[in-house]
């Protein structure tokens, strides 16, 4: 064990950050590929088949195409804001990834490596704060385009994300009460000690979180800010080339981060199923990272599945659902959880 201050806080995180920056854009490319394939299979099509075997090189071709496109800003746009808006979203998406505990730590060349890049003791809070900044990107991008469809998309995104964030936060609070910590890895440890995933204790919260998560990441059936059949492409109508791809990267990063948060809060993070059942301990040889990827992958699939099945909500119905159903139910869930904890504590000491 030769960890030093330098290795713990500078070198290892830097290597991990570089790894994420290098791998993640490619990964997003392949998430898009999977999305196109799965949607195609739902719709009795084949999906991308031309570039490479089974279209496997399609994401790379797409990325090259986007990078070589002209970087256009509309004549009357606020060029500075127009150009930084997609960067904000991208940075937020990637920052969010840093908080996810992706697996148990391991030892490499005598150094302890933790698979969550930053494990701050207020991780959940920090993550929520970071993720809610993404509204700024959409609003700024939509506003700076100086065009009507992006403006409408931006207004929708502001209203939608703010109202669903309230429900999301109340839902998470209930879980935090159970765990008694705000640290992401602390929540996983709490689930290990409790001997069960929080999905079994918080089923209502789990469902609320999933739906709020879809609304928060602007995916169908809640993809109103981009609503392609109404607002052309919503807030990024005027974007093209790699700035457009930044919005895409940011959106998919948000999907991964939210799925990761969901997995951490309700499904035991990187732990194997039923971590306290000795019978299943033969599964221990599988690294935690694999479980994490499997669980997050399932929810990415879930996002795609929804997209292939549901029509889109209307703006007023979405807001009605958010304020009249989700917020009251999530507050009730929080109170019941708090009450249950008090009762359990006083009865069983």
């Amino acid at each position, binding site marked *: 064990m030769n960890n030093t201050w330098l290795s713990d806080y500078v070198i290892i995180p830097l290597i991990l950050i570089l790894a994420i920056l290098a791998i993640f854009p490619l990964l997003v490319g392949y998430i898009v590929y999977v999305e196109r394939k799965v949607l195609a299979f739902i719709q009795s099509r084949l999906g991308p088949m031309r570039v490479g075997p089974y279209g496997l090189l399609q994401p790379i071709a797409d990325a090259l195409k986007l990078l070589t496109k002209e970087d256009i800003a509309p004549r009357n746009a606020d060029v500075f804001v127009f150009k930084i808006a997609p960067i904000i979203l991208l940075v937020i998406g990637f920052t969010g990834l840093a908080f996810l505990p992706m697996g148990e730590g391991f030892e490499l060349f005598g150094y302890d490596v933790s698979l969550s890049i930053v494990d701050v003791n207020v991780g959940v809070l920090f993550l929520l704060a970071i993720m809610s900044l993404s509204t700024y990107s959409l609003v700024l991008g939509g506003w700076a385009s100086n065009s009507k469809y992006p403006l409408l998309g931006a207004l929708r995104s502001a209203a939608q994300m703010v109202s669903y964030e309230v429900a999301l936060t109340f839902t998470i609070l209930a879980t935090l009460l159970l765990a008694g910590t705000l640290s992401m890895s602390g929540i996983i440890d709490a689930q290990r000690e409790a001997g069960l995933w929080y999905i079994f204790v918080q089923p209502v919260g789990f469902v609320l979180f999933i739906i709020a998560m879809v609304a928060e990441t602007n995916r169908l*059936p809640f993809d109103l800010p981009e609503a392609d*059949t*109404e607002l*052309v492409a919503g807030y990024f109508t005027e974007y093209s080339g790699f700035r457009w791809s930044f919005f895409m990267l940011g959106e998919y990063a948000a999907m991964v981060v939210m799925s990761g948060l969901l997995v951490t809060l309700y499904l035991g993070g990187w732990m194997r199923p039923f971590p306290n059942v000795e019978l299943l301990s033969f599964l221990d040889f599988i690294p935690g990272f694999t479980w994490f990827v499997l669980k997050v992958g399932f929810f990415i699939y879930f996002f795609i599945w929804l997209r292939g099945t549901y*029509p*889109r909500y*209307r*703006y007023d119905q979405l807001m009605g659902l958010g304020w009249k159903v989700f917020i009251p139910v999530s507050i009730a869930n929080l109170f019941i959880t708090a009450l249950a904890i008090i009762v359990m504590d006083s009865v069983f000491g």
Partner: protein
Amino acid sequence: MLRTHEMELNMGPQHPSTHGVLRLILYLDGETIVDCKPVIGYLHRGTEKLCETRNYYKNVPFTDRTDYLAAPNGNLGYCETVEKLGGYEVSERAQFVRTAICELSRMASHLMWLGTHAMDIGAQTMLMWTIREREVILDFFEAALGDRLTTTAFRPGGLRRDLPDGWIQAVLGFCATFPDRIDEYELLLSKNRIWIDRTVGVGLISAEDAIDMGLSGPLLRGSGVAYDVRKAMPYAAYDKVDFEIAVSNDCDSYGRYVIRLKEMRESTKIVEQCLRELPDGPITGKVPKVLKIEAGKEVYHQIEAPRGELGYYIVADGSDKPYKCKIRAPSFVNLAAITQMVKGLLIADVVTVIGSIDIVLGDVDR
């Protein structure tokens, strides 16, 4: 200085869900529609004028290109008008085949409508599923008529040629499975909470208004008026087949959705009846090689196209060309209702309403 004012939003002619080149000028208060002005004419090709420059036979292809999603129905409207004008006989076999092909075309047209309407509301899977079935119908057209979209299916006096071998069995096979496919669509949409929320009560039009505006087709029947040209003034072989008119009292987009699904089921029945009871005989009528219709004759004849009442008004002047050929296009008349239907709704509903009116811009602009 802070102030509020209406936003003018130009929707189309290039917009993903204005179904071609419809342009709507929307006046918005936030997302609420205060007023809506449709602007048309982007696809105007002067079909009516062109019809005056070609002889009666050569005009048939123009009628493919008005309502290009249901070309056989346009062909039938024109051919029957010319037949009425010149007093030409059509054999019973040709009548039955025409009826079957027109009903197949209604199914194809409604399938396209269902797919695009659902996609406008966000359910994109629907489009792929409906196109899958529409493809089969288009293949039938290709086999029997030689083309998929611009079919030029009929000619005054009957059809160009008889049905190919095995066609009837293939179509009957399709008709046997098609109702199951409709059940599949219903599984995805009819009970879907979001679909119901998005379509119920959207695009309301009362029966009185619908009649006053001259609306027809599913739009009129969706407001509770049981008027269908196929029953009211039977043409082709519609008086010899058994079917029901789909009517709904909902007056909204959901009602029209239910009606069109029911119509597809009824069309399947009509096709089956026509092909099962297909009489023998010639398929081309005894019609002169050059049609010359005496001057002073004029006829208005209407049929029930998938979008509503399609009428042709032809005036003859003794030559081999029409003196005037006026087309009463259902999409054009139905589109007039859009302003009244969308007032007070949201932007997302405009898309729903355009979809539920089911316009084809080729039909609107001609």
